[in-house]
């Protein structure tokens, strides 16, 4: 069995396939850029506030949680609104990407069945659109921090934000690719993912600080692929420190991308037949 697009004559070696893949890269980047632009246009076409809406959801959620946790349950945490937002913004990025992953392939049937579209591009553009939404929240958070503390965001953000964005993008794209592919064959996944996300939201230190989790349960936070990310984001955004949890987050990104690659490799080619 050979590749469908290999040039005539002769079989493609790994090296020629690799070089051909690299040759396609600029075109694929342009395609992904156009797909991201389309995604953003589609979402905000005809809305008056446009991308500002990407702030509305986490801000409203933050207000509700603030009232519930601070004033109803009376939990004392310093700077609670900022504390919440430092974890809610990255959580929002991950959870909305993963939530839409289940239907990513099943709702793009005409493209997948009729065009030789690299399915990775579809996943990448879906996640990158969410990454842009997240990008909008960073200056907003910086401004809020400045107002609350009277000091501008620290310089360490310049290194930390791109690093964590990279790790979270790899993690999220891997989850999205694996879930979107698997959901074509096992449609239950769509419902399962929704329940799991809810569960992960509560076991991840988002509403509460890591310090509230008993030390002998920290391994549980470390095992959850989202846990180290959120802990690292909060350390960076709120305290201006590069936490050692970044390393654990990177390990999760690596094994998740290996799993996603395997799923894609084993089952991906059957997606156009099964979707």
């Amino acid at each position, binding site marked *: *069995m*050979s590749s*469908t*697009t*290999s*040039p*005539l*004559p002769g079989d493609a070696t790994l090296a020629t396939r690799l070089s051909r893949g690299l040759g396609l890269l*600029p*075109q694929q980047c*342009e*395609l992904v850029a*156009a*797909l991201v632009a*389309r995604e953003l*246009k*589609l979402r905000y*076409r005809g809305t008056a506030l446009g991308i500002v809406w990407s702030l509305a959801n986490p801000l409203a959620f933050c207000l509700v949680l603030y009232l519930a946790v601070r004033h109803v349950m009376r939990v004392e945490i310093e700077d609670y609104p900022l504390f919440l937002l430092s974890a809610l913004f990255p959580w929002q990025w991950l959870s909305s990407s993963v939530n839409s992953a289940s239907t990513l392939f099943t709702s*793009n049937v*005409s*493209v997948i*069945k*009729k*065009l*030789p*579209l690299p399915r990775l591009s579809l996943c990448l553009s879906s996640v990158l659109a969410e990454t842009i939404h997240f990008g909008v929240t960073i200056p907003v958070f910086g401004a809020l921090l400045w107002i609350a503390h009277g000091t501008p965001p620290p310089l360490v953000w310049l290194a930390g934000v791109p690093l964590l964005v990279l790790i979270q993008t790899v993690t999220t794209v891997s989850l999205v690719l694996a879930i979107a592919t698997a959901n074509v064959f*096992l*449609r*239950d996944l769509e419902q*399962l993912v929704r329940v799991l996300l809810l569960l992960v939201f509560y076991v991840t230190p988002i509403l509460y600080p890591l310090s509230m989790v008993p030390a002998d349960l920290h391994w549980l936070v470390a095992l959850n692929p989202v846990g180290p990310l959120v802990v690292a984001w909060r350390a960076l955004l709120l305290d201006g420190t590069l936490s050692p949890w970044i390393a654990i987050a990177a390990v999760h990104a690596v094994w998740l991308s290996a799993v996603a690659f395997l799923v894609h490799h084993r089952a991906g*080619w*059957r997606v*156009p*037949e*099964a979707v």
Partner: protein
Amino acid sequence: MSTAVSLENVTKVFRLEPRGPRGLKALVLDPRSLFRPAPRRVFCALDRVSLSLARGETLGVIGANGAGKSTLLALIGGILRPTSGSVRVAGRVAPLLELGAGFSHELTGRENAIVNGLLLGRRRRDVDRSLDAVIEFAGIEEFIDEPLKSYSSGMRARLGFAIAVQAHPDVLLVDEVLSVGDAAFRARSLDRIAEMSRAGATILFVTHDLELVSRVSDRVAWLDRGALAALGPPEEVVASYRAEARVRPRAESALFALARERAASAESA
């Protein structure tokens, strides 16, 4: 003459969905089903098909519904992978399997033309450069900045066709799409395909229009239930297909019978 498309012993078997409960439900109802693979139901869409097309050749593909024509194009277009055998294509392929595949109804014709051009594997600057030619060919100048949902189905089809032919592919795959659009557009599309063919493009097109297939193709392939029943000069293959098709019941014959009945009753009245 260099080879543009070559298929060697290509077989495509589709797995059909197993009957009965699936997914988590099956696991709950019968946990042992996890370890006992469901009886596999398969459908062989293409059976050991071999053919090879020279650069610049035009091949018409005919056959009854479900004979494997679209599967053949999807394999050459790189959308499906053969179960066994090999498919080789030299150069860039533009699969026109459905006009307007991947269009977003909320976006304008122009925005869709850009995304679709990129989906066909073109570079952004080439897409931008040929945009005027696409608009001109589709004949939708005054609507190009309107959202696609306001287009008629004919306009949408014209735009889809214009994008694919302006992509200047080495291999163009056309599946039954020339039947849409009015006579003028159809004539222009055929002219355009002939022009591309003269310029060296290899063209495979699926159609039920036997007049057209004899007129346009260099060779015709006749697929019968997944197997290549004949491959050769258009007149010969079309003649043997016609002879074979006559003995089989035709789907439209009931309609003809109804029309005859109506005509007869109108006469007698």
